[in-house]
């Protein structure tokens, strides 16, 4: 049944603004870089130093995305995807289908993760092309340095991990509050608040929305010491569990 639930939830994202947001949000920054490189006749070979050119370019593009655009995109996409039932007055239909409440909750969250995965896919694909195309045009070959697969996948995984608390709390808020302004408003406040406090307050890592910015701007040794990824997972589990309990025990279901 869970597969049917996921399939039906995925169909709801068809032609939706969330799908476009995911596509545009994922490709926007790499496309800007691509245009810049084409305009200036540059390739990633210009990045010389300790880091592999691919790795350097990867972090350079990600830094614009990770600090603000990524959390904001997650907030908007979560609200758009989760609130589809409130917007269309369809909770009553969802809750009169032969699915358990757990299946509905899990399916909705998996679709959300799927859309986030798609966002990462769009970003990485466009990022790769933004490096490869200028090299092919101006140097006549792919970038000559080895592609750091291991580092590439690990970095993507870590960034995804920092997104989980945002996803889980936004999911909870979007499921619970009919008015989308509540979830978006709270999300925006938390993003801006954590941006202000990151770098100024030594305990900024206790704010669940600070992790994308912290991992980009913070001191790597310090982050390791405070087990930042454990914090991410902890918040994620707490928010998701709390969201589930709130959803299942809700008295009016449509």
């Amino acid at each position: 049944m869970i597969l049917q639930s996921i399939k039906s939830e995925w169909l709801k994202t068809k032609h939706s603004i969330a799908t476009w947001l995911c596509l545009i949000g994922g490709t926007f920054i790499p496309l800007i870089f691509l245009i810049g490189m084409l305009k200036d006749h540059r390739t990633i070979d210009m990045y010389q130093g300790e880091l592999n050119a691919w790795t350097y370019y990867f972090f350079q593009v990600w830094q614009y995305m990770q600090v603000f655009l990524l959390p904001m995109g997650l907030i908007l996409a979560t609200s758009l995807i989760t609130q589809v039932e409130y917007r269309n007055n369809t909770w009553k239909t969802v809750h009169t289908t032969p699915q358990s409440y757990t299946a509905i909750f899990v399916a909705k969250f998996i679709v959300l993760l799927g859309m986030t995965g798609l966002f990462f896919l769009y970003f990485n694909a466009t990022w790769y092309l933004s490096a490869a195309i200028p090299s092919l045009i101006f140097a006549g070959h792919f970038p000559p340095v080895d592609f750091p697969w291991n580092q590439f996948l690990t970095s993507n995984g870590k960034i995804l991990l920092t997104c989980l608390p945002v996803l889980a709390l936004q999911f909870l808020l979007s499921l619970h509050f009919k008015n989308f302004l509540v979830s978006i408003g709270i999300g925006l406040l938390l993003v801006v608040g954590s941006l202000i406090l990151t770098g100024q307050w030594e305990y900024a890592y206790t704010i669940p929305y600070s992790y994308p910015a912290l991992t980009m701007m913070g001191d790597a040794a310090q982050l390791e010491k405070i087990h930042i990824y454990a914090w991410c997972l902890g918040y994620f589990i707490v928010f998701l569990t709390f969201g589930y309990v709130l959803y299942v025990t809700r008295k009016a279901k449509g």
Partner: protein
Amino acid sequence: MSAPENCIVTENLTHRFGSNELVVQDVNLVIPRASIYGFLGPNGAGKTTTLRLILGLLQKQQGKIYIKGMPLHKHRTLLMRSIGNLIESPSIYAHLSATENVRIQQILFGTNRKRIQQVLQLVGLEKTGSKPAGKFSLGMKQRLGIAIALLHSPEILILDEPTNGLDPNGMIEIRELLLRLHKENGMTILVSSHLLAEIEKLATHVGVIHNGILRFQGSTTELADLQRHQKGTLIATDNITLSKQIFDEQGISYHIAENVFHVSVENIQRVVELNRTLNERGVGVFKIEAQKHDIETIFMELIK
């Protein structure tokens, strides 16, 4: 195990909004299998709340709900396979086409994919193509809602005001469709409405709810019996006390509503004699009227 005779049964169903607002009070619905049960009541009477409770959309506070003999709270997901519903306004995804809207349900109910076109044809929406359902007229949305409710060929159909927002032609179409489903498939249909005429043309059984209390429940034959019992004459006089005394002396049963006597006399000759007696005893009679005994009068009496 044979199927129970009654498809939906509620026992002392009671629901409050907040701590005080009692919206449904000790409602004991008995909806026989293969019946069309017209659930009547004015706006705000408690119809939608009762239907939402039956569908598990509201958490039950007091009472019991049985569907096909099984308690709803224990077998919700199983029972939902047997129920199609349309509660209040149509519930559809505005950014998806009619086919995609039905497809979502088809995936969940695991029905044959061909069924999507069948139900769309049934409600006349098979040619809407990729047009988003948000751009449909209210009538089309309502018909799409009915198509979704019918997709899995449910044994029970629960419809809340299904003709709301439809033009007279649309209302007739929906009525004919429901009658056909009942006749051909033996479907049990629970349909709420505040439109008495609509229910009168459709239902085999009727329940009347007002202020959260079930005022009447039974077959349309039982309702006709009630109509017969309600036959009589309305008499308004200028002396209530003396009139009561005269009716008592004559052995005529009566009740008073808004200073008008409803007397159990309908024979014209007998009414003339009664009028004469009242006049002779000095009682002025300023209204004599045969009591209407159509369903509308009964309905108004029930919700008084």
